[in-house]
């Protein structure tokens, strides 16, 4: 297949900026953004990556995909709530591109496929960072992105490997899988629980999520809710790549950053704190829907899901509290 010489990242939030900044070192990096000023700033100043990588990259940015030329790879890096709008904007553009989705949860690939017949790669990413400004992102957790061909499209494993290679050359950790579902579900179950529990308890992903000493320690809830997710995956015929509980132990052991004080604030916690719509429909909602379809009970995930939805609804209501 053709070498990928030019890429487009749709959505330059934290994750999108990390992709765009790193890939600029090995390809022409373009960015599709929503705000005019954001595009202007990126065109004028480029994109700075600090933290785990030190990069000052040149970026071509626009609010219109027609300005960005012919790219071999599109990475849709918006939040799940904005994928529909991004895919709509991409419709009719980039006929030679592979499109990769990196959203949390399940279901974004289907949305993309409604707007074009691109080969679609599914991806989940574990890297994280902090966005300091439109033109500066800090690379905090240099953990991997997993990717694989989405079965609903014409994408091949070879295309996934090509993107894996590109990401690695750009300084990111990546792993291609012939079938991403086992890995995607591992992360889905993990996120469905960790994100909602963090959002509802106002706690970052601290060690307490893995504690099971007292009956009221959060670890009991996390383990029980993950066990539900695992039963749903099994009923859907998915063999998990990693045990979500082990992922929880790993993420709460300070191994990832070497910084004793570090506790990751899951995106849903940040959304709730900022009173923004969360991705719960794609994450815990995906577990709830799959459970209903498979006829497997998942009462704890359902409750976590409903509570976050009610929390979102509360911001739109006028009430004395």
């Amino acid at each position, binding site marked *: 297949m053709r070498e990928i010489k030019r890429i487009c990242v749709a959505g330059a939030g934290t994750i999108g900026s990390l992709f765009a900044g790193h890939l600029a070192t090995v390809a022409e990096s373009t960015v599709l953004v929503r705000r005019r000023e954001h595009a202007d700033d990126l065109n004028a100043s480029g994109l700075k990556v600090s933290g785990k990588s030190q990069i000052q990259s040149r970026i071509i940015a626009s609010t219109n995909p027609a300005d960005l030329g012919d790219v071999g790879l599109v990475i849709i890096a918006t939040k799940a709530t904005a994928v529909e709008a991004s895919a709509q904007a991409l419709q009719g553009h980039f006929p030679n591109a592979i499109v990769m989705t990196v959203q949390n949860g399940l279901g974004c690939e289907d949305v993309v496929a409604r707007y074009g017949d691109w080969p679609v790669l599914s991806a989940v990413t574990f890297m994280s960072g902090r966005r300091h400004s439109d033109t500066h992102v800090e690379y905090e957790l240099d953990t991997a992105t997993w990717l694989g061909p989405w079965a609903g499209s014409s994408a091949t494993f070879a295309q996934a490997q090509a993107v894996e290679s590109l990401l690695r050359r750009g300084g990111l950790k990546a792993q291609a899988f012939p079938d991403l579902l086992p890995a995607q579900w591992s992360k889905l179950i993990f996120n469905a629980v960790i994100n909602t*529990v963090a959002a*509802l*308890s*106002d*706690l970052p992903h*601290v*060690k*307490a999520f893995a504690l099971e000493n007292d*009956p*009221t*320690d*959060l670890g*009991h*809830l996390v383990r*029980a*809710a993950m066990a539900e997710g695992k039963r749903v995956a099994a009923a859907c015929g998915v063999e998990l790549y990693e045990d979500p509980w082990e992922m929880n132990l790993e993420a709460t*052991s*300070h191994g990832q950053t070497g910084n*004793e*004080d570090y*506790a990751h604030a899951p995106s849903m916690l940040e959304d709730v704190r900022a009173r923004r719509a969360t991705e719960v429909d794609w994450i815990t909602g995906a577990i709830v829907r799959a459970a209903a379809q498979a006829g497997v009970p998942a*009462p*704890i995930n359902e*409750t*976590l*899901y*409903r*509570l976050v*939805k*009610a*929390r979102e*609804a*509360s911001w739109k*209501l006028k*009430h*004395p*509290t």
Partner: protein
Amino acid sequence: MKVCIIGCGAIGSLFAAHLGRLDDVEVWAYDPDQAHVNAINQNGLRLTGLSDIVVRIKASNDASAIPPCEFGIIAVKTMHTRAAMQATAAIFRDGAVCSVQNGIGNEEIIAEYVPRVILGTTFPAGHITAPGVVNHDTGGKTKMSPFPPKPASMEEVRLLADTLIRGGADIEAMEDARGALWTKVIFNSASNAMGALTRLPHGVACDQPGVRRVMRELVAEGKAVAQALGITLDSDPDALIDYGREKAYQHPPSMLSDVLNKRPTEVDALNGGIAAFGRQTGVPTPLNAAITDIIKGLEYSWREAEWRNLKP
């Protein structure tokens, strides 16, 4: 007769005021709040709102200053039950203590400290408006009964009830008030927890998609545990939730106020109590356990120094 109110907050004050109207009852109030104690001793305890009354009672934040009493009425928040009983046990070495607190598990703790225990559940509400002043918000009945395995005698329960009734309170002495207690606890396990987690008043929370269903599921777990314990509820908590939605649409449950003010909640005695008795009786209570964990997690989030420094 000497009676000591343990915890003279809103609820404790309502009981203290009823008893304070009687010439043949010497009322003491044990409360840790110095300003409240001083105000009561200087100006008497004053009720406003539904009641308009000032009574002369004696208050202290030093349990050793309080003489032995035949009865205690404990009205502290559930997380303070043990500390309050530890401090006041000597006052009741020959007495009986009646809980009028929220939740389940209080009587078990009280029984570790005093010879005889009265189980109680109460519905009136009030709030402190100034030191020594409590507004009586709503009326309601209090039901009480002997608490095995360390029961006060039925005569003793009736004596306390009759005394309170003479003071104007609405009291029912019963052989077994657990049904009333559990009905209220199950109602609260749904109303309080959902209010706290959605940050919405009771009725508004009920009307959010999915929330009423979670409430129903919490109630179903609580009912199953009550049934396993051989307790007959005196009304359907689900119907109370609907009734509350009609009558108190904008009422913020106390746990919601606690969460908004970052104060420890009574979740251990509500959802946590149901989950604990669920474990004891082998009845699954996954949602009450989950809700307890989330609220405890929320309380933990307010103690940032603690989780920041938690070592592996």
